[in-house]
């Protein structure tokens, strides 16, 4: 009965010193490691969250554009369906059909952007339409040079924005290189890849790169800054492209109205002509 407490007390006395010796250091070290781990985890999490947020923003913009184009397509399809089903439209059946044709082009562009299924000519035409609708901003964002590289750059970037980077980029490079414009094709590929990388979260990656560069020294830091400068240009191109696509969807909507106006004027002229001849 008495032996047990003595033994347990002596065991405590024997075990206490090593426990207190290491205890002075271990908890602190553990705490430090824990704090470091937590900070590291928080930093990683923050960087990851920034990348994810940036990617989500870009994808949200692209989705917005596709939705706008899809709305044009649906509105026109409804108009065409009404024309088929109702006599209300009467003389305006041809208008509805023409509007349907506009919608088909809009849907084709939207679909091409979403899948990367635009042809090389289609991609270049999209680039031309964007330059036309944006006028100066897009030309400035892409360097404003009116050569083949300029057009291929916009076309490649516009299509990669929609998610199908490989389609126009690889197809375009191959076909245009065949035509003898190898330099232009390489430039287009570079711009397209740059913007495609932007869609994967450029800013977040840029910050990570800069952080690593700082740790590696002055020369590496300079490399990081150069990389960031390049990324900013690509980001600007991306923003301009998104703005341009929104403008283009509005241009489609205006085209529909212009067509209706034009056909109504033709209809009025015909009525007037019939009325005059009838007298």
């Amino acid at each position, binding site marked *: 009965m008495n032996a047990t407490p003595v033994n347990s007390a002596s065991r405590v006395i024997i075990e206490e010193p090593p426990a207190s010796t290491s205890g002075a250091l271990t908890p602190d070290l553990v705490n430090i490691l824990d704090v470091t781990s937590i900070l590291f985890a928080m930093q990683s999490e923050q960087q990851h969250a920034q990348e994810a947020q940036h990617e989500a923003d870009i994808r949200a913009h692209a989705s917005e554009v596709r939705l706008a184009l899809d709305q044009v397509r649906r509105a026109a399809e409804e108009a065409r369906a009404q024309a088929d089903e109702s006599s209300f439209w009467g003389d305006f059946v041809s208008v509805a059909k023409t509007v349907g044709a506009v919608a088909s082009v809009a849907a084709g562009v939207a679909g091409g952007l979403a899948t990367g299924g635009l042809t090389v000519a289609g991609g*270049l035409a999209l680039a031309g339409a964007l330059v*036309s609708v944006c006028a100066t901003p897009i*030309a400035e964002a892409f360097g404003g040079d009116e050569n083949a590289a300029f057009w291929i750059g916009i076309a490649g970037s516009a299509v990669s924005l929609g998610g199908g980077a490989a389609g126009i980029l690889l197809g375009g490079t191959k076909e245009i290189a065949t035509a003898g414009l190898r330099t232009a094709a390489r430039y287009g590929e570079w711009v397209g890849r740059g913007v495609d990388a932007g869609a994967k979260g450029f800013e977040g990656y840029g910050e990570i790169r800069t952080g690593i560069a700082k740790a590696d020294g002055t020369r590496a830091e300079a490399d990081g800054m150069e990389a960031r400068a390049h990324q900013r240009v690509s980001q600007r191109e991306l923003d301009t492209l998104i703005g341009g696509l929104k403008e283009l969807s509005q241009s489609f909507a205006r085209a529909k109205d*212009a067509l209706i106006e034009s056909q109504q004027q033709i209809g009025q002229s015909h009525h007037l002509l019939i009325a005059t001849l009838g007298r």
Partner: protein
Amino acid sequence: MYDAALGFMAKGEQSKAADLLRVLALAAPTEPEVWEALATCHDEQNQRDIGEALRALGRMLERSQ
């Protein structure tokens, strides 16, 4: 649609014509007349640089056929 665009151009409504011509350019990218008309719209809106760029693109697309 091309005729409608030309009609708007004749009336001095370059902006409406350009809206129609952009649709046509996407529907038929290798038709040089469409690019030429679109370029003219820009010329008449004091955007000759854009007009020239679009003409160059039209030529490039025509050659690529």
